[in-house]
C-alpha cells in the first residue's frame, strides 16, 4: 500500500469583506472525509471539477499541507512530519507551476537536484542519460529553462521529478496546454516508466485520453467527497455516458431514426452529415455502422468518446438527491 488515506479532512477559513470594515469568516471544507488506498505499482486517475479538492488532496499527500483531521500515509510515512524522507521517495510534477530554475539550463538543474537528493555521481548520471534519451531532451539540455517551449519544459520537469527514481510519481495536470503529439509522447513515456521501474502513478487531469491510456482505476471527487472509485468503463456505464458517431453520407438522406440502441443528435440541413448517440453498453460502433449501411452509403465517420467533464457532470448530477 503506497498511499493510504483515512477519513481525510481539510478546512480552509475564507475571509471575505462585507461592508467597509467587517469581514465575514467562512469555513470551507475543501476535502471532506476521503478514504482510499492505492496499491504499489498502480496507475490511478484522480478526477474532479475545479475546486473539487484534487490539489488540496495532493498537497496533503506530499507534505505541503497538514490535514485538519484524518490520517494520510504516503510510502508508509506521515507526509508533513517526515517531509524530507518522503521527498526522497516521491516525485511531483505540477503542469502549471515550474519546479526548475528558470535561469538555469536543464543540465545544470539536474546536477543541482542530484546534489539536493545526495545521489551518487555514477548513479544519477546513468539515470539522467536514460531520461534524456527516453524524453528526447538532448537538443535543449543546455538552453535556459525560460527559453523552452511548454512541451519541452514539461518533459524537463518530468525528468527532474524522476531523477531520484521515486517509487511514486504524482502528476497534477501534466498534459495541460500540450499539443496532441506531445501529450501522446508523455503518455507513452509514463507507461514505460511504470512497466520498467514499477513506478506508481497518481495523476489529476481533465483529459479523458490521459485516463483512458494510462489509468486502470479512477477516483472521482466532488466537493471534497468521494463520488466514484473504480474503472473507467464502469464509470461510463454508471452515468450512462454516450458515444457520438458522426456520419458523412454520399447522398442527402432522411434522418437516421430508429437504428437500434441509438438516437439522432442532429442532422445538418442538407442531410449529408448526421450524428447518432449510443451507449457503449447497449450497442457497438460496428453494429450501428452496419445498420446505417443498409439504409444509405457512408462516406466517412468519426466517433467522439464521452468527455471527462461530461461524465463527471453526469456523475455529480446523479449523486445529488432529487
Amino acid at each position, binding site marked *: 500500500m503506497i498511499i493510504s488515506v483515512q477519513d481525510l479532512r481539510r478546512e480552509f477559513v475564507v475571509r471575505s469583506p462585507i461592508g467597509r470594515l467587517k469581514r465575514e469568516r467562512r469555513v470551507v471544507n475543501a476535502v471532506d472525509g476521503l478514504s482510499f488506498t492505492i496499491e504499489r505499482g498502480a496507475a490511478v486517475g484522480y478526477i474532479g471539477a475545479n475546486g473539487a479538492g484534487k490539489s488540496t488532496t495532493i498537497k496533503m499527500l*506530499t507534505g505541503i499541507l497538514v490535514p485538519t483531521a484524518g490520517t494520510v500515509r504516503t510510502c508508509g510515512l506521515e507526509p508533513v512530519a517526515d517531509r*524530507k524522507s518522503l521527498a526522497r521517495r516521491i516525485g511531483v510534477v505540477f503542469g502549471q507551476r515550474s519546479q526548475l530554475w528558470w535561469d538555469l539550463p536543464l543540465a545544470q538543474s539536474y546536477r543541482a537536484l542530484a*546534489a539536493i537528493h545526495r545521489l551518487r555521481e555514477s548513479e544519477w548520471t546513468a539515470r539522467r542519460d536514460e531520461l534524456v534519451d527516453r524524453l528526447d531532451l538532448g537538443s535543449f539540455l543546455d538552453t535556459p529553462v525560460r527559453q523552452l517551449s511548454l512541451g519541452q519544459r514539461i518533459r524537463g520537469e518530468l525528468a527532474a521529478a524522476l531523477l531520484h527514481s521515486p517509487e511514486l510519481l504524482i502528476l497534477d495536470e501534466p498534459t495541460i496546454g500540450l499539443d496532441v503529439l506531445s501529450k501522446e509522447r508523455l503518455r507513452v513515456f509514463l507507461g514505460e516508466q511504470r512497466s520498467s521501474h514499477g513506478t506508481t502513478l497518481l495523476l489529476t487531469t481533465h483529459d479523458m485520453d490521459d485516463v483512458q491510456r494510462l489509468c486502470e482505476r479512477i477516483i472521482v471527487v466532488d466537493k471534497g467527497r468521494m463520488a466514484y472509485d473504480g474503472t473507467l468503463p464502469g464509470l461510463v456505464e454508471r452515468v450512462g455516458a454516450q458515444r457520438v458517431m458522426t456520419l458523412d453520407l454520399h447522398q442527402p438522406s432522411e434522418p437516421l431514426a430508429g437504428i437500434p440502441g441509438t438516437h439522432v443528435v442532429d442532422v445538418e440541413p442538407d442531410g449529408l452529415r448526421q450524428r447518432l448517440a449510443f451507449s457503449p453498453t447497449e450497442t457497438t460502433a460496428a453494429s450501428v455502422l452496419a445498420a446505417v449501411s443498409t439504409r444509405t452509403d457512408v462516406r466517412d465517420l468519426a466517433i467522439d468518446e464521452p468527455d471527462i467533464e461530461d461524465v463527471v457532470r453526469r456523475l455529480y448530477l446523479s449523486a445529488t438527491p432529487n
Partner: protein
Amino acid sequence: MADQLAQWWRPYRELIGSRVRSQTAYRRSFALDVLGSAAVGVVEFAEVYIIFSNVDALGGLDFAGVALIFALANLAFSLADLVVGHLDELPRYLRTGTLDAFLLRPLPVLAQLVTSDISLRRLGRTAVSMIILAIALPLNDIDWTAGRIVLVGVAPIAGAAIFAALFVCAGAVLFWLIEGAQFSHAFTYGGNYAATFPASIFAMPMRVFFTFVIPSAFVAYLPTLVLLDLPGPPGLPQWLGWCTPLAAVGIWAIALLSWRAGVRHYTGAGS
C-alpha cells in the same frame, strides 16, 4: 569528518554555485550592479560626512569614531543583505508556488530560500565599508590589546548574523502579512539605519529598543565603545560591547522559532 561535511555541504555548494554562475553570466550588467551597490554605500557615508561638517561630535563621538561605527555597521549589513536580503520576497515565492517546490525537496525550507538568490552585486557595498573601515581604524586612537584585535574581526561577522536574523524574523512575519514587505523593512532597513549612528543620540526608550528588542546597537556602537575605551551612556555599559556574539545567538534563536512558526502557519499545522 571532513568528508561528511563536504557531503552535507554539497547541495548548498551546487545551489550557490549555480546562482553565482547565472549572476555573473552578463559581465557588464553585473559590473554595473556592483557599482550601483557601491554608490549606495558612498551616498550613505556622505550623510555622516555632511553631519560632521556642521557639528564636532555626535553622541559623544568624533568623526573618526562615527566613521568606525558606520563602517562596522555597513560591513555587517551588506554581508547579511548579500546572503538573506531577498527574504522580503517571500510573498512572491508563495504566489508562484516556489515554496511548494521547496517543500518537495529533502532540504530545510529556509536553507533553500537563502541559497535561491544570493545577491553578489551587494559586494559593492561590502567593498566600500571595508575601505572606510581601513581608513577609520588608524584615524582612531585605539589601544590594541589581543581582545580588541579579536573584537574587530568578530564584530562584523556577529553583526552580519544579527542583521541576517532580523531579515529572517521579518521574512517569517510575511507568512502572515502577505503584503507586509514595507512593515518588515522597518525592522531590517530601520535596524541598519539605527546601527550606523551612536545609540547614545537616541532618547532612553529608543536606546533600549534598539539594543534589547532590535539589537542593532550590538552591531557597531557597543563594540566601538570597547575599541575606543569609552564609557557607555546610561543603560548601556561598555562591557555589553563584548556581547555581540551572544546577542547574535539570542536573536537567531528567536528568528528560527519565528520561521518555524511561519512555515507551520503556511502548511496549516499552526494556528
